[in-house]
């Protein structure tokens, strides 16, 4: 129909306008940031701040190069930006991180000098991030974007081993320790979570079914209100006494400091979300369904295993996800009682006023928490979809 196609064209036109506007806003904000704020800093050493590096300086130093770079980037944005916004975003971020290695290679940087990210650097990240997240792209395009980025990252990473970017310098120096603390962080979180799971499953089931369970549930709730740091500290005392009275435990490494109280504290914190997930999950199963099951001839155990538990799973998964991510985050406090973990870098960094060291602890931690949240979230969605027909 003539009318329909005209309307269609108008709508298409409008959305095209909207996309064009978005790209314009994106490019303009990037350019503004570049000119107003310094992108990097040339620091003489790890603690003293140095001279800022502005985009205008870079332009005047190598005009043609930067004009070409900027030009091609803008072109790229307008050509494929709407369809591949994640790719643009990723390219921008990748460029910011690899630029120092590329540009300052061969520059006679005096020893100790390093290039550290400045305000402009982080602001550009913000703009790039929003552009990528708010982009309305198809799943296919997104997959392509990620694939291309993965390849580019794979190529870029080995080239960074001499990068003067302060964060990379710090990473090179602390690499062994970082891996050690990362593993320790994972160890602490894993054992705390596993322990909490083992305890909360029977307690959660109790809480859902019998009144006795209510007591345990309330206790888990009270534990949550104790500030994490306080709980870590509080647990040191009983463990110390325990280790003194029972020497064989000391041989196994249980003591007032270190992993034992840390794991216990982390585990206690994880109890509440786990128990809530289990309790609410079990409660969400309709009573009629269970009665029908009983009446048809399910034994109590089979009824629980084949009907009740599967139907409870979505909420149980939600609780598990919260508990796991929370444990990872709380473990950042473990180094305060000698248990190690990624928090070590955060506290050392604060103590030495080295932002880079703090970030060395923060970035992996973010990766861990966001990553596990995403993975568990996907798992939860998958579970919910297969049970989408559930819960009439």
């Amino acid at each position, binding site marked *: 129909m003539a009318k329909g196609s005209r309307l269609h064209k108008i709508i298409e036109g409008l959305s095209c306008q909207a996309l064009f506007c978005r790209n314009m806003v994106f490019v303009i904000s990037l350019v503004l940031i570049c000119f107003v704020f310094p992108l990097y800093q040339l620091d003489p050493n790890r*603690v003293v701040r140095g001279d800022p590096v502005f985009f205008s300086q870079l332009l005047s130093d190598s005009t043609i190069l930067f004009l070409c770079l900027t030009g091609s980037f803008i072109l790229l944005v307008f050509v494929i930006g709407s369809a591949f916004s994640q790719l643009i975003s990723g390219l921008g971020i990748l460029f910011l991180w690899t630029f120092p290695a590329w540009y300052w290679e061969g520059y006679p940087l005096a020893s100790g000098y390093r290039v550290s990210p400045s305000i402009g650097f982080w602001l550009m990240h913000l703009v790039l991030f929003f552009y990528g997240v708010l982009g309305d792209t198809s799943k296919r395009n997104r997959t392509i974007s990620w694939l291309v980025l993965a390849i580019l990252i794979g190529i870029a990473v080995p080239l960074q081993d001499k990068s003067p970017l302060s964060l990379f310098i710090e990473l090179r*120096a602390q690499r062994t320790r970082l891996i050690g603390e990362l593993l320790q962080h994972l160890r602490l979180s894993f054992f705390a979570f596993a322990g909490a799971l083992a305890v909360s499953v029977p307690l959660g089931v109790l809480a859902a079914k019998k009144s006795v369970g209510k007591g345990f549930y309330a206790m888990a709730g009270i534990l949550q209100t104790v500030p994490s740091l306080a709980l870590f500290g509080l647990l040191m005392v009983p463990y110390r006494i325990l*280790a003194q009275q029972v020497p064989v435990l000391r041989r196994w*490494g249980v003591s*007032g400091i270190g*992993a034992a109280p840390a794991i216990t504290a982390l585990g206690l914190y994880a109890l509440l979300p786990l128990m809530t997930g289990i309790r609410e999950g079990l409660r969400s199963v309709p009573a009629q369904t269970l009665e029908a099951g009983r009446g048809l001839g399910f034994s109590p155990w089979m009824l629980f295993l084949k009907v009740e538990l599967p139907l409870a799973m979505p909420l149980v998964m939600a609780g598990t996800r919260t508990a796991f991510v929370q444990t990872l985050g709380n473990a950042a406090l473990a180094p305060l009682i000698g248990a190690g973990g990624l928090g070590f870098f955060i506290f*050392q960094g604060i*103590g*030495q*006023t080295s932002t880079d060291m703090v970030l060395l602890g923060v970035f992996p931690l973010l990766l861990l928490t966001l990553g596990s949240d995403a993975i568990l979230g996907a798992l939860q969605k998958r579970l919910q979809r297969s049970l989408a027909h559930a819960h009439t």
Partner: protein
Amino acid sequence: MKLSKILVTLLILSATVISCGTQKGSIVVGSKMDTEGALLGNMIKLVLEQKGYSVVDKIQLGGTPIVRKAIISGEIDLYPEYTGNGAFFFNEAENPVWKDASKAYARVKELDLAKNNLVWLQPASANNTWAIAVRKDLAANAGLKTLSDLASYVNKGGGFKLAGSEEFVNSPAALPAFYQAYGFTLKPEQLLILSGGNTATTEKAASEGTDGVNAAMAYGTDGQLAAFQLFVLEDDKNVQPVYQPAPVVRKAVLEKYPELPKLLDPIFQKLDLVTLQTLNARIVVEGKIPEDVAREWLKAAGFIK
């Protein structure tokens, strides 16, 4: 039932994996979490390892209370501590003996052996005590070398702003003690109080001139002083307690390994103020890891190969 048994076994195994227990012929070396603690702890560890001990590394374990508890309860065997801290461990902050280096050392050695069965080995000569550091340009312009100089400068109305922690500004043993001894006070607008006793932050503030700050609370052996272009004013009236680092060993361990003093005393003898400042600077300013810095220096000084 099976599942819970497996879980329990796993938990026990993991506890073993996470932290090694002490075996015969080994020694557990700990230290505080700060830079200097890491440096000294690593020095001790590397020397002992060179001599064939199997060292369990608990360096950078935590703050002073944690490490102290650890050695008293026997979880670590050896760690570097400061002589001046004896005033707080044994609750004798008013005792003037802590202001004299040798008297302080003698006192803490006597008390710790009697009360906790801990033996203090020979201390280093460096004094890592609380100090006031000013910007080099201010020191040059106003001719400041000692705290007495500072007192007269301030009393004459010289421009001065000090960044310090809550504790430093308010504790009777710190700034108020300086006031009393040198006869000056600082008005509230001449102070910038940063919470948390972090000399790195205060020094950075002075170096960058944040908020008009031109002086900072500092520790004597801080590595970043030179980099921040700060000059430490001499405590000519000896107001502050003396904080000399020394290895502290459990008596039982010393009896097992009586050669420990022979190994560690020479090292600590060589650690004077400038040496410690330089080594700390390598860690904080250059970003090297404490173990590497310790190893390099020990090699250069001929203690290890």
